[in-house]
């Protein structure tokens, strides 16, 4: 497959690994923010091939994992309104809320459909004109423009029964909050790839300028991650801190203007709750007044009930990079993929899921 297979080639990987090994002398902790990067790192065993002085830590860039229980409870409450069809990305199905999950209420009779795209949700709305179809808007700046486009399409086509529950979040504000907390010391940041495809590389400049942390925007294939680490190591060894793009085939410094335009047309920044971090100002998206008729929160009476956090779950600490899954007393004993306590275990991108499924540093 073009532009995929070439970036998995073993001999090119060996070249990068070799260079990283002999040029990296300083101890460095790099955080990969994005859950997609976490998956690649674990799936290919990248931590094992890096030299001992490089430490990789996973950050909160898994939109499923950082959705607060209270927000998931809202989605579940919506699904329990008679007649409502919830359309959601598959990832959210098994995540435990305070009392239930979308999968559980689906088994109890609620209409919850898994979709690959908002286009499928729009089609469901057209096929069921007498029933409200609510799309669960989860995701960062990569996904928000696609949801914005779906709302504009609904407007264009006169679809009156399509709604969005916006739980979208923005990355730069939460990275700032993470760095301000001082909890985790980083010498480099693997910047999100496809978020940058939309927002460009300029939004990361504050990290290099204000916090002195090297930043490199990475793609998602193993060669991309290795090239990114190589570039971070280079900055670290030279004492530099700037924003570079390794993922040049997928990211332009100015991003995707059209995507940003549509996103800004439909959404405006709002405070958002991040699991493990509490409320972070201007880190979420809500529908603008003009599009309120598509806003699920404005059009339905939601009674989600009190929100509860699962006892003993340290997903919050793991998301901030201050603890690892092995530090969690529930990991692998009580909290398992088939019986998750927190979202980090159930999300395909969660740290706990990656540790559990791919193993943590096998030798031999």
């Amino acid at each position: 497959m073009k532009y995929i297979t070439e970036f998995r080639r073993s001999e090119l990987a060996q070249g990068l690994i070799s260079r990283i090994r002999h040029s990296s002398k300083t101890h460095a902790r790099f955080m990969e923010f994005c859950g997609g990067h976490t998956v690649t790192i674990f799936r290919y065993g990248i931590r094992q091939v890096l030299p001992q002085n490089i430490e990789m830590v996973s950050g909160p860039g898994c939109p499923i994992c950082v959705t607060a229980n209270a927000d998931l409870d809202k989605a579940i409450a919506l699904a329990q309104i008679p007649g409502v069809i919830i359309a959601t990305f598959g990832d959210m199905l098994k995540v435990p809320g305070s009392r239930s999950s979308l999968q559980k209420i689906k088994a109890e009779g609620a209409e919850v459909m898994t979709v690959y795209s908002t286009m499928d949700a729009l089609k469901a709305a057209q096929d069921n004109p007498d029933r409200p179809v609510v799309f669960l808007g989860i995701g960062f700046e990569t996904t928000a423009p696609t949801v914005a486009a779906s709302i504009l399409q609904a407007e264009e086509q006169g679809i009156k029964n399509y709604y969005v529950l916006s739980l979208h979040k923005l990355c730069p504000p939460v990275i700032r909050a993470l760095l301000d907390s001082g909890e985790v010391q980083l010498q480099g940041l693997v910047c999100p790839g496809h978020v940058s495809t939309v927002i460009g590389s300029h939004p990361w400049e504050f990290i290099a300028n204000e916090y002195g942390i090297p930043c490199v925007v990475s793609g998602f294939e193993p060669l991309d991650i290795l090239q990114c680490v190589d570039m971070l190591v280079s900055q670290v060894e030279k004492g530099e801190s700037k924003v570079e793009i390794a993922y040049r085939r997928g990211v332009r410094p100015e991003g995707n203007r059209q995507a940003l335009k549509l996103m800004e047309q439909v959404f405006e920044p709002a405070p958002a709750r991040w699991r493990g971090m509490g409320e972070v100002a201007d880190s979420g998206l809500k529908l603008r007044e003009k599009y309120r008729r598509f806003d699920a929160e404005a059009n339905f009476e939601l009674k989600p009930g009190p929100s509860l956090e699962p006892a003993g779950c340290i997903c919050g600490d793991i998301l901030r990079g201050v603890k690892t899954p092995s530090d969690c007393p529930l990991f692998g004993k009580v909290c398992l993929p088939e019986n998750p306590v927190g979202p980090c275990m159930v999300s395909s991108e969660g740290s706990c899921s990656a540790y559990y499924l791919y193993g943590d540093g096998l030798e031999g």
Partner: protein
Amino acid sequence: MKDKKDKILLAHGGGGRLAHDLVEKSFVKTLANPLLDKLDDSAVFDVKGRLAFTTDSYVVSPVFFPGGDIGKLAVCGTVNDLAMSGAKPLYLSLAFIIEEGLLLSELEKIVSSVQKAAGEAGVEIVTGDTKVVPRGSADKLFINTAGVGLIPDGVDISGDKAKVGDKVILSGAIGDHGIAVISRREGISFDTKLKSDCAPLGGLVAEMLEVSRNINCLRDPTRGGLASTLNELANQSKVSIRIEEKDIPVREAVLGACEMLGFDPLYIANEGRLVAIVSPEDADKILKAMKKNKYGKDAVIIGEVAAEPPGRVVMKTVLGAQRIVDMLVGDLLPRIC
């Protein structure tokens, strides 16, 4: 009159004239064989030797998919379960649970598939049952089967017999069936020329046993995919199975669909593939025999059995690092991230 003939009604499962007609005209006529033709409450036959006995239920949706349908699947799946014990499949039972309103033409098409698959597999459908349930109580059609096969003397194949040093052979590319099925499912659909690999493997297994009796384990990687099957075997035999990512055959179309939907081919269902764990000294000649059969022409050695860590499957990635391959948990869902 025409309406009654076009759709299956509750009465078709009632045991009366309508039911009797359905069985005679739509089932027995197509599946004709001496045992079934008798239409007794049970099929009676003599078998000498060690028997393998299996049961399965089929609830695939959609019932028609590229490369097959629920009927073909029911026959091949049952036959393959028997073949995985080294047995020669002989007789199958076939029970239909039909949702009221299923088109008769669709049912007949499925029965025709059953007949064709049974013919190729060399088995007979000797007894059956038909029930019809109200609309909404079943998804078009569910099929339950049971199968009986005869195990040749001296053949003893079981999931707990893998030994350190054994080689692991895979009979062909993985993921075809699962992707073919998902390509038709609502909410997630796309066009593909890929077909399900659904196939009866009794013949392939017989040919393997002809060249060697040192076949320790056989299993078909159905739901849960290759990864889950290898984990089961590693667990049962209390060994470790080590495979290399670069050796596992996957068709480009399957890779493309997996990329698009965020799946891992290792977890996608197959319905015409087998995994064989064999003694290392016979591995090459078993592989050679497999390649001569149309359902084994792409067979390849994908790894070997080791001692540590027991019960785990370990894969060497293209970077040369090792990672665990775990069992599938729950159902595969399309990812976004």
